[in-house]
């Protein structure tokens, strides 16, 4: 199947996903389940990755700025900007594409293989909307919060490990993270997070929904879902950055 066919089928699927739900109450229950599955269950991995990213960025930045002309507070500034602009929104979303995306693709793919999606259709339920809409909405709502938490934890991790390893003092680090703060950077980060959240749920859902075959194909859908959503996240990152920051 060519790329254009995939795009066309994806657009058609999304047009069915964003139809009026049969019953808001049932969809709302699904939505809160997904908030738990996508958001709260990812908190641990987000925290670990963010703290270590912040810590490594601090140490690497400090060791790469040996010139006396560069003030030490630049370490805090570099950690803040790299976490807010790139690491938290992009890297966290790529990690979530792996964790959440493969889960979505295999869950929906298994439902397809075991005829559960057919069962929903026979009941008169819009299966695409019922299975995919709550996941997209939950991700678009909860992943920006995860990214904000990641920003704080990354900067916090950088501060703690920076001070512990002696590459920066608390005063210089805190001065750096408050120096020339541009609030639009956070807005930019959240805008791209919302786009990435849509991609990392809708693309795996697409591959899962159109799975055909058995266990091997379900596995293949999970792999394709992660690969394609990661590539599209990187592509959209470039486009959004060019549009909003250039």
């Amino acid at each position: 199947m060519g790329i254009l066919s995939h795009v066309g089928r994806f657009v058609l699927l999304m047009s069915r996903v964003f139809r009026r739900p049969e019953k808001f109450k049932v969809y709302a229950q699904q939505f809160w389940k997904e908030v738990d599955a996508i958001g709260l269950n990812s908190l641990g991995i987000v925290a670990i990755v963010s703290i270590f990213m912040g810590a490594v960025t601090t140490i690497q930045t400090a060791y790469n700025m040996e010139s006396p002309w560069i003030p030490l507070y630049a370490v805090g500034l570099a950690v803040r900007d790299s976490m807010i602009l790139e690491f938290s929104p992009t890297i966290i979303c790529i990690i979530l594409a792996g964790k959440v995306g493969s889960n979505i693709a295999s869950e929906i793919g298994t439902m397809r293989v075991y005829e559960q999606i057919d069962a929903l259709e026979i009941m008169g339920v819009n299966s695409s909307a019922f299975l995919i809409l709550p996941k997209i909405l939950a991700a678009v709502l909860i992943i920006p919060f995860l990214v904000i938490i990641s920003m704080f934890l990354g900067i916090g991790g950088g501060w703690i490990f920076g001070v512990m390893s002696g590459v920066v003092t608390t005063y210089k680090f805190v001065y750096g993270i408050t120096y020339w703060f541009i609030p639009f950077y956070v807005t930019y980060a959240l805008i791209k997070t919302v786009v990435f959240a849509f991609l990392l749920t809708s693309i795996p859902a697409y591959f899962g929904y159109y799975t055909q075959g058995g266990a091997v194909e379900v596995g293949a859908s999970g792999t394709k879902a992660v690969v394609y959503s990661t590539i599209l996240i990187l592509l959209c990152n470039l486009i959004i950055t060019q549009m909003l920051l250039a």
Partner: protein
Amino acid sequence: MIRIADINKSFGEKHVLKGITATFEAGKTNLIIGQSGSGKTVLTKCIVGLHSVDSGQIHYGDKDFIVMDFKEKKQLRQEIGMLFQGGALFDSLTVEENVLFPLSMFSDQSMSEKRDRANFCLNRVKLDNANKLFPAEISGGMKKRVAIARAMAMNPKYLFCDEPNSGLDPQTSIVIDNLIKEITDEYNMTTVVITHDMNSVMEIGDNIIFIYKGEKWWEGSNEDILKTENKEINDFVYASKYMRRLKAAK
């Protein structure tokens, strides 16, 4: 009543259904039989709209299914119950929640009324103590019964069963067959059962359609099937040594 006329369906080069015409009457257990790969499941999926047909007509009562839009099809499907080969129960829901699911989606009844209806359906299929169990915790026969209860929950006019006995022992198969027969009579449903189990054919086959290589080859009752001289159907019915010996003894 469901009427289908001149149904054709191909997958790429492969012509799977070739001009099938049939009528499935209400209050009767209509069986579609045939060898594996003959097109039985594809035909059923075409009738319920899971596959689109290349040409032909499908009428539910006086409603033309082919010309219906998305909304009308959704409406009609609330009158259809389907029992899938593997049960197709939702793994994350308990037995009771599975039966409650269509009611939660489409019924405006109170929660206690919905629960009463779900429990009634579960009692009807003789599953009283399994409400809180998950599909992974119950046997194959129980899964089929839960699937029947779920299919019954919305009081469907039409019931489709795709190989309801596959993977079941002969005794449980008879229980499932009898259950299908009983609810068909009780609610005057139009029931279509796909099977290649000769026990089912003899037990519940009011009207039997034999599909051979994508074509309707023969139609009759469970009494007619033993008398027919049609070679293909005889090869199918008397495939086992036991059945051949039985025929010779007659």
